[in-house]
């Protein structure tokens, strides 16, 4: 602006304009920080404060049923947890659920996104269908699945040709895990599909046409044009969903209560604190879970070079 209004030769005026604009920048900086401060302080207060408290409690042997026996044990709780096979079993379950559900959701979600991107009619119906699993309460969706897979009242055994009518899905580890993962996939695929749809709409049609003219096959167009051009969207979707899947709790609580060794890390933490009243041990688990999620987020961000802020164009 100043370059247009002020003649090139007038150095003094230019200096003045720059000073004014830097004054404005300072004021803008201050106003911006003032406006975000309340929200940032509140976020830190409600999250960091309990987390610091958890860190402190994790250093004690502290059971709520015998509060007077509270005793400082240093890193003792961490040693106990990390040498317990149940902790590793549950971590493994959580990782399996995370990897399998995110991978399947990526494929189904991409299919959904493709259909929604291409189809011109009944878009309202598509949007409504896809948003209902998203909006439904997870506990409700888990009940629906538990009933569907149940022995006496479920339709799944009757509908699936390769399964006997008396097959008990919740009687074995892998079949119970399968039911849990189906519930998780159903509930969260829409979120994945919508994120991918946003990425898909950024792929330029011109580029696709050019590729087709040059004789690229469908598969080539998919892998050489479409997917590379929506990499940012895919990575953000994977990041969000992976971290979300790692917290899995509701589906397991409703469908198996952790039976058949289907317990997740979140469930183990909950059980230690609420059912066993082992606050010290439970806090150590909380801290470990938090660190795991942090590590996971860091790994995904570094490995795939994904940056949510940048993907939004705020870089």
């Amino acid at each position, binding site marked *: 602006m100043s370059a247009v209004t002020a003649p090139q030769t007038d150095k003094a005026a230019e200096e003045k304009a720059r000073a004014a604009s830097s004054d404005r920048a300072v004021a803008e900086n201050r*106003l911006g920080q003032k406006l975000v401060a309340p929200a940032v302080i509140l976020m830190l207060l409600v999250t960091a404060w309990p987390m610091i408290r958890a860190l402190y409690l994790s250093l004690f042997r502290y059971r709520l049923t015998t509060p007077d026996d509270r005793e400082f044990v240093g890193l003792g709780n961490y040693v106990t947890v990390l040498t317990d096979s149940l902790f590793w079993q549950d971590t493994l379950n959580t990782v399996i659920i995370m990897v399998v559900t995110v991978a399947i959701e990526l494929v189904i979600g991409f299919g959904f996104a493709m259909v929604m991107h291409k189809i011109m009619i009944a878009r309202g119906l598509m949007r409504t*269908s896809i948003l209902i699993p998203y909006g439904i309460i997870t506990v409700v969706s888990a009940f629906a699945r538990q009933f569907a897979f149940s022995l006496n009242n479920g339709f799944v055994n009757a509908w699936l040709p390769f399964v006997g009518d008396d097959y008990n899905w919740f009687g074995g580890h892998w079949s119970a895990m399968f039911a849990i993962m189906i519930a998780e996939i159903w509930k969260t695929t829409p979120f994945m599909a919508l994120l991918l749809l946003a990425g898909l709409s950024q792929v330029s049609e011109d580029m696709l046409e050019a590729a087709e003219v040059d004789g690229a096959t469908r598969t080539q167009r998919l892998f050489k044009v479409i997917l590379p051009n929506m990499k940012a969207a895919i990575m953000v979707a994977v990041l969000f969903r992976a971290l979300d899947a790692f917290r899995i709790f509701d589906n397991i*609580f409703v469908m198996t209560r952790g039976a058949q060794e289907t317990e997740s890390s979140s469930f183990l933490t909950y059980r230690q604190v609420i059912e066993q009243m082992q606050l010290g041990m439970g806090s150590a688990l909380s801290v470990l879970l938090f660190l795991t999620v942090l590590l996971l987020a860091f790994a995904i961000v570094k490995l795939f070079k994904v940056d949510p802020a940048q993907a939004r164009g705020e870089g």
Partner: protein
Amino acid sequence: MRADGRQGKDRSRHWIGFIAIPVWCLLPVAWIVSLSFKSLEETAAGSPQFLPKDFTTSNYGEILKNDDFTRALINSFGIAMIATVLSVVFATPAAYAIARLEFKGKRLVLSMAPAIAMFPVVSLVGPLFDMWRTFGLFNTWPGLIIPYMTFTLPLAIWTLSAFFREIPWEMEQAAQVDGATSWQAFHKVIVPLAAPGVFTAAILTFFFARNEFVLTISLTSTTSSRTVPAQMSFFVGPDPFNPPYAQLATASVIVTIPVIIIVLLFQRKIVAGLTSGAVKG
């Protein structure tokens, strides 16, 4: 000719998807609706077919007379609503600053929001269980609303800032040039432009707050503050593998009806909110 064939194949593929999406998404919903019309006797005896043998609506009358359930409905609505309003109030100025102003730490705030929203909520259960009993917040509304802010507030910031970036802010100056006062320009131009975004962000935040489960079963002990998901898990009774199916399905249908209505009314806005909130689209 070949191109035609390919196009035909493409089209049939999309038609398969066209059928598959609603079926996949709505089948479980149809299932709980069907289950809610089965009688308790029918499910107790075992009823593996999809549709009810004897159609009955008695479950609905019974569940709506159940005081524990209606109380849970009130708790759920109240707690999620207050958490949403507080989040939107705090998030709006922050989102405005992120969308319109340049300041130090902007990127940090923008990266922090999703990081905190993805935080494992169960980690808060231990310390809060301990602290809330000392502060008298255990089994109260504020005892849930405060930890709910850990995910509702960052979500609101994230979605709102995406919406605010799309607003043509020059309109404000244009109105002032045309003789409107600052207040008029804000009130008549900016508020109507920003309102749909704020409203959509509020819907998404509300969905999340209402869905929360681990905190509500951990930090409540009676029906005075238990929300719907927690109350439903207590309907199950001692044997989790033989719950009162029809009753639970009926409760499920009742709490899902508002979701369907909201989705039908605001689907376009919700999709915009979800997608622009993550990737510029």
